[in-house]
């Protein structure tokens, strides 16, 4: 996506597609929120959500996006998503599976701006539903998504522990 300037003055930040050079900062924001190091994960996300779609037009229908909010060269937030289709009969929908904002900048509507940019991108691709999945005890993220208008959907997440064979 083209770089977009948001808000003026000292609080100004831009929104743009993530670059290879953003990965370390994205990973640092993620660790500050989740407390979990994920070696190689963000490099892989950048590879699949930025590099590959840029080189292979056959992936365009997936509308993969990995956006960063930046102040100059400093990444202050990010969001990752894509279009998923026909999982257990679900028509194409936008999926957001990662969002993060630097803790010291959480009152500047950065997450809201990133989320709305993802919504706009999916909407432009003809999508009318956006979904996410998060831990029940992640009250901060759940409150954020609900504040954006998200409610429980018709799908439910199930899991089980795999016993050793």
């Amino acid at each position: 996506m083209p770089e977009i300037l948001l808000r003026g003055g000292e609080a100004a930040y831009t929104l743009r597609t993530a670059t290879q050079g953003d990965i370390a900062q994205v990973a640092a924001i993620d660790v500050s929120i989740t407390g979990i190091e994920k070696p190689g994960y963000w490099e892989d996300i950048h590879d699949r959500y930025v590099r590959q779609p840029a080189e292979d037009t056959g992936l365009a229908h997936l509308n993969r996006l990995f956006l960063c909010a930046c102040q100059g060269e400093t990444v202050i937030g990010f969001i990752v998503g894509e279009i998923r289709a026909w999982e257990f009969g679900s028509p194409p929908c936008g999926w957001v599976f990662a969002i993060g904002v630097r803790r010291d900048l959480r009152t500047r509507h950065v997450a809201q701006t990133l989320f709305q940019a993802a919504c706009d991108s999916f909407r432009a691709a003809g999508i009318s539903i956006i979904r996410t999945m998060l831990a029940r005890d992640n009250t901060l993220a759940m409150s954020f998504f609900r504040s954006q208008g998200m409610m429980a959907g018709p799908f439910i997440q199930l899991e089980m522990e795999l016993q050793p064979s």
Partner: protein
Amino acid sequence: MKLQKATRCALFAILELAADPGRQMSAHEIADKYGISTNHLAKVLRSLGRAGLLEAVRGAGGGYRFSGSVKRTTLLDVIQLFETIDPLARGEREDGDDTKAGAALCQVLTEIEDIARATFASISLETMLKVVEKKG
């Protein structure tokens, strides 16, 4: 899922007053709008006042006004003043819970409790007022 009458009264009153924090309303006005007992609501309003969510305005034309935070107060904060929505998580036990079938039933009911609790905890009054607004 069904909430107790006092909880519903509390949520109606809080949402009514939080929609316009500068406005004050009497128990009678709120009760009249939602078709609930004024006496019952009056007790609920006193509880909400003790919790710091409402402020009583004395004198002629007095009533209650919202004094909490619409961003920080969640539905769970209000509900928990009047009832427990997750009795199993709080250690409440019933006959038969020590059997295998009872333990299995507890597991399923705990799953439902967890979802209910997470749902109420994630909805602030500000978010709920947006949902109310969408209802036209």
